[in-house]
């Protein structure tokens, strides 16, 4: 069995995100990190590999992004992936969700994975949906927000929360599964794994190498045009109390509640 894990480089959580006014795209300069949600997908792959219910030959980390995205792949490898694939091409810049999903699907096709795993969302774009796009292109069954996943007789038994409670769904392989952050507690990489990450095989592909049609990606090939970025209607900022003397804090809170007849 071969597992591919889709990962993404995102701005570090501590960096304030903003739209670059000259391009209308997210300003992706500054400190970067592996999307924290993706670490759960890598951990899920490692648990399948180590769990013994399936013979896993390989875990491959796959990303699309500029040169710097290699660091996300190194992190993924340090967390257990055996090798990685980096799709990078100027022609891909500005791709929307649908175009990005198409490009990733073309890249995955080359690998013929039995299972594609990804995180429930990226920390920056907040899209939640790339898995469903990839799955339709790959013609594979798909499920998102999975919080429990077991391999049984070559099938996956997945649990997730949906609109009406918990659903249990059986999915045949090959499949595309996006995992929720409740599925596991990702491990920390060992120092040895971090040091060794750069030595693991890394394939770098351009759009042409992956058989991606140029007119279906990038800003031109995207079917959504985003623009007119503006501030949302502002809510009056609330009052903030820094708790230094708890008795005093509590007194203030009680007074606030009383004023609004909530006590």
């Amino acid at each position, binding site marked *: 069995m071969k597992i591919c894990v889709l990962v993404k480089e995102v701005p570090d959580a501590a960096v304030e995100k903003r*739209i670059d006014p000259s391009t209308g795209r997210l300003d992706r300069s500054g400190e970067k990190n592996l999307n924290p949600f993706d670490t759960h997908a890598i951990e899920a792959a490692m648990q399948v590999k180590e769990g013994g219910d399936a013979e896993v030959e390989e875990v491959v980390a796959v990303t699309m992004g500029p040169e710097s995205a290699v660091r996300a792949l190194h992190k993924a490898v340090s967390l257990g992936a055996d090798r990685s694939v980096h799709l990078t091409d100027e022609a891909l810049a500005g791709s*929307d*969700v*649908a175009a990005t*999903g198409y490009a990733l699907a073309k890249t995955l096709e080359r690998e013929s994975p039995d299972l594609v795993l990804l995180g429930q969302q990226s920390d*920056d774009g*907040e899209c*939640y*949906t790339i898995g*469903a*796009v*990839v*799955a*339709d*292109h790959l*013609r*594979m*069954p*798909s499920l998102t*927000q999975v*919080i429990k996943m077991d391999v049984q007789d070559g099938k996956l038994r997945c649990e997730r*929360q*949906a*609109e*009406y*409670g*918990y659903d*249990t*769904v059986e*999915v*045949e392989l090959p499949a595309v599964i996006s995992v929720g*952050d409740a599925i596991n507690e990702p491990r920390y990489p060992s120092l040895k794994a971090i040091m060794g990450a750069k030595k693991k095989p890394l394939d770098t592909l351009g759009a042409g190498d992956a058989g991606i049609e140029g007119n279906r990606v990038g800003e031109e090939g*995207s*079917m*959504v*045009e*985003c*623009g*007119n*970025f*503006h*501030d*949302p209607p502002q*809510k009056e*900022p*609330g*009052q*903030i*109390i820094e*708790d230094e003397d*708890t*008795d005093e*804090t*509590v*007194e203030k*809170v*009680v007074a*606030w509640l009383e004023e609004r007849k*909530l*006590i």
Partner: protein
Amino acid sequence: MADILVYVLHYEGAFNKNSLGAVSEGARLAGELGGEAHAVVVGGDDLTDELCGSLGAHGATKVFRGQGPEGLAQPVVDVMAKVISDNGHAYALFGGGLLGFEIGAGLAARMNAGVTMEVTEVKVDDGKLVASRPILQDSKVSESRYKGDLGVIIGRLNAFEAAERNGGTATVEDVDVELSPWSTKASMVQRGEQRGADVNIEDADILVAGGRGLGKAEGFQLAEALAEALGGAVAATRAVVDAGWYPYSTQIGQTGKTVAPKLYLAAGISGAIQHKVGMQSSENIVAINKDANAPIFEFSDLGIVGDLNKILPKLTEAVKAKKGG
């Protein structure tokens, strides 16, 4: 002509509230575009003519009814792709919810369409729909315009309110669709399982909600004590429900319940968007969190930066004393 096709989710013979909101919104927008709003439903025998026809009350003129498994996205993609190919709808619209995200994204891939998710507002500009969505943790709003024959719009939870439109009864048309091979490779083993005790939090005037910041399952005792003193109930975030700290029936947010009490006191909740959409209409929001940068402080009326373990017990005592005196 610009017709809008709206997906309507149902469960045990009743339509989803967010879906009905999407039908109402679709009817409003179709009216402005000079087209019609149609609904699409996928399921079994409980989708009677009468039930489907009732979508007319929310403004759907026609309902396309496909046979297929319920609770799974890909069979619905097959049905919607067929309906749109045969009828030339210009937009597909979804209310908030997990399935809508999956179906909308799958449909965009299938039809080479643009897709926007987490949409909070849709307007008509120059005969076309423009979808607005908050981005960057709700600090900015972006507008999407669509190229191509089809635009897919997926609403944020509770973004579209269900409203009566004087539509009467919708006509029902059965759609015969052969499901894609990959759509039949996922099967529902059990749907809608309720885990843990059944608690009604939707009617409470006061809710004390606990998140990961409570530290462990036992941390909820602090929230329970405060809720009891205030005369309210206890709610929880998805993270702690998934961790097994508190029952599913108390969960607020994207896949849980939507509440709007007089007082929502959030203890140890960071305020992720998935949680926010389920409680932001509360009259008064009080947040206690040790992280001064937690997003919840951006939409709370009173924020306390500090240690829950110190504050909650003293607050409980103070509320009790005040009520007793």
